């Protein structure tokens, strides 16, 4: 920016870089690093707040007493340098430059005596710098903590005989039912696969009856009923048998009227 540099500032003989065609002859006064290391140096900043903190520390300034004009001038010098070195200049640096310029202009403006509650224009910047500084330091301390692979070496011994055992997944009833619900919703889209509301116990009994019937052998009808189950149980078994008959899974055989009825699994 067009601000005249203080006479005390040292100047070097050869241009350091070219900024908008003009040679940049001076290294910002607190930049005590060889020019060829500049790029690395500038890239080391973690952003505009980091750069500002650096500038403030280099001059041993209390954050609370930042001389805005001086800091702005130096900050802009760095931003110009970054441009000259074609460093990718993040928008954040320019936003910060604008903020500094704004603060500077507000400090120059006369202010009404009355408005004492109006904040010092630097206050917001100071707050942000302090907040950032806390976490910058916290990050440094975090880096100094012992950590695995550096100071902490956990023991993990080999166990040659150990074999990985794969266990089957667990399934909850809710999962099962939500799967069923989905199938039902899908099945209802095509009418002919509507799932009827068969009483479950009948279907379960169908499985049991089938299991009891040995292939090819006759089983006496009455053997399939367990009187201990009571009336309801007998009815369920009977319904199951009817269903099995309907599905042509079993056949009933009666040699003559009133002779014992036999049940047989159908064989092809």
């Amino acid at each position, binding site marked *: 920016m067009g601000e005249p540099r203080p006479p005390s500032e040292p100047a070097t003989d050869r241009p350091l870089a070219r900024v908008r065609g003009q040679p940049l002859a001076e290294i910002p006064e607190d930049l005590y690093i060889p020019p060829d290391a500049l790029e690395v140096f500038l890239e080391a900043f973690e952003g505009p707040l980091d750069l500002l903190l650096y500038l403030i520390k280099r001059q041993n300034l209390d954050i609370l007493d930042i001389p805005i004009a001086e800091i702005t001038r130096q900050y802009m010098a760095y931003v110009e340098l970054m441009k000259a070195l074609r460093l990718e200049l993040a928008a954040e640096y320019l936003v910060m430059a604008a903020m500094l310029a704004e603060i500077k202009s507000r400090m120059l403006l006369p202010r009404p005596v009355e408005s004492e509650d109006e904040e010092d224009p630097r206050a917001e910047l100071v707050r942000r710098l302090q907040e950032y500084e806390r976490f910058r330091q916290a990050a440094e301390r975090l880096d100094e903590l012992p950590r695995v692979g550096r100071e902490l070496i956990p023991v993990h011994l080999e*166990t040659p005989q150990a074999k990985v055992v794969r266990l089957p997944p667990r*399934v909850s009833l809710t999962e099962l039912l939500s799967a069923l619900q989905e199938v039902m919703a899908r099945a209802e889209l095509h009418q002919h696969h509507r799932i009827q509301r068969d009483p479950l116990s009948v279907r379960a009994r169908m499985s049991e009856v089938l299991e009891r019937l040995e292939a090819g052998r006759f089983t006496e009808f009455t053997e399939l009923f367990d009187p201990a189950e009571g009336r309801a149980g007998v009815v369920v078994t009977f319904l199951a048998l009817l269903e099995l008959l309907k599905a042509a899974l079993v056949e009933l055989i009666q040699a003559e009227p009133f002779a014992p009825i036999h049940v047989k699994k159908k064989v092809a």
Partner: protein
Amino acid sequence: MNNEQIALIVEAALMASERPLSLEALARLFADEEPRPERGRLLEALEIIRQAYDGRAVELVEVASGYRFQVRKSWVPWIAKLWEERPARYSRALLETLALIAYRQPITRGEIEAIRGVSVSSSIIRTLLERDWIRVVGHKEVPGRPALYATTRAFLDHFGLKSLDELPPLPEVKDLEHLGERLAGLEEARPVEVSDGQG
């Protein structure tokens, strides 16, 4: 540096290393020492360590490429559970198949496919059979004599049910939200950790 110190450094190295360490590798730990402990002292250090771990759960052994600590064989069966892995979960297709077998048993694969509208892979049926959640209860007398599947006692055990009657009736399933509370009760009643291999 005395033998005890050498032994502790060797011990630390063997505990930290992912692979066995040879005598040469151990000697390199002391490369900056003056005088460097020679081979004999390293062997003495290893002997000190071996004795120190007498009666502990781990031991120092020598294998082809050097020395290492390992868990004593006698304790390995006790910690076998450390290597148990549970695959994340079953596929939707498997759960749907299982649900249809539970609610429509006995049922053939073709019938499941007709309802689901997609084919049921053999691996799903195999998984369910191996898990002992379903079994073949007969064959349907239609061409091809397809197997009829039904659920097992192990299936009931896994879901904490005494009988199939305890499965919620279909109309309720359609209204899963209202079913939530009832199910919560059922699932809480399940034993915390049932071993999976019910007979």
